[in-house]
C-alpha cells in the first residue's frame, strides 16, 4: 500500500509505502496516515465497483481503508472558493 499526498507545484509525493500484512510496516503506515489527518488532510481510496465503475471512497481512519487497497491519496480539505453571495 502506498500513501500519496497531492502537493502544490509538485504533483503527488509518496509519504509511506508498505505491506499491511507486516506489522512493523503497517504501524508506519498508520502513523503516516494519522499525521496527515492531524494536518487537516482528507483521505480517499480509489476503488472499482463490481460493475467496473471507478470511484473514490473517503476514509476517516486507517481501519476504514480496505486491506487490499493499493493507494490512499491525501489532499487538502475542501474550502468554499469564493464568498457567498449576499441575499
Amino acid at each position: 500500500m502506498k500513501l500519496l499526498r497531492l502537493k502544490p507545484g509538485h504533483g503527488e509525493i509518496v509519504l509511506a509505502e508498505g505491506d499491511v500484512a507486516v506489522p512493523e510496516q503497517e504501524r508506519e503506515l498508520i502513523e503516516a496516515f494519522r499525521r496527515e489527518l492531524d494536518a487537516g488532510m482528507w483521505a480517499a481510496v480509489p476503488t472499482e465497483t463490481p460493475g467496473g465503475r471507478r470511484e473514490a471512497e473517503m476514509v476517516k481512519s486507517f481501519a476504514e481503508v480496505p486491506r487490499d487497497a493499493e493507494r490512499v491519496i491525501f489532499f487538502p480539505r475542501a474550502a468554499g472558493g469564493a464568498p457567498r453571495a449576499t441575499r
Partner: protein
Amino acid sequence: MAWALGTTALVLVVLVWELSRPRLALAVAQLRKRWAARRRGAAQMGYDPGRERRAEQRARALLSSCVDEQLWAMYRDLGFLRVWGGLGVGAAYAYLIYPHKPIVAYLPDTGELLNEYCVAFPDQTKPYGSSRLPDSDDVLAKWMALTGDERRLVADANMHLPGRQIDPGMVRRDLARLARWEQQRVEHPAGSVRAA
C-alpha cells in the same frame, strides 16, 4: 557679521554630520545585509520554469490511473470531467468538473444549468510558494470528493446561481462539445476522438 554667520553655519553642518554619521553607517550596513540576504534567497529558490509542467504531467498520470478510461479520455480531449450526481430522487443531474473553476451542476436531459459549487483545496503549507494544486490534481481532488462524499463536498462549497464565475455560454458550448464527443465515440469506439 556675514563671515561670523558663515563660520557658524559651517560648524553646525560639520557637527550634524559627525553626530549622524554612525547612524547613517549603520543604516547602510543593514541595507547591504538585507540586499545580500535577498540575493542569496533568490539563488537558493532557483526558479525552475519546468517545475510546474512536470508537476502537471505527474498529476495527469495519477488522474488517468484513478478514473475510468472514458472519463480520462473526456478530460484529455475536452478539458473537463462529467460526473453523475447521486443525491436525491427525480431527474438525473450531473456535474462538470473544471480545473480551478467552480463545479457546475446541470440537468443532462434539458441542458439546464442548476448551480455553481465554488470549491478549492488550498494547501496552507505552500511548499512551493503557491497553495494551488496542479490543474489535474485539482480535478482529481474534486472527482474523489464528489464520488466519495458528494453531500459533504456540496455542503463545504459555496453555492451560487449559474453565471457567477463561469460563463453560462461557455458551459453550454462545452455541453455541446461533450455531446458531439460522445456521439463520435459511439461511432468510432476504438480510437481517441479529438474535440472540435
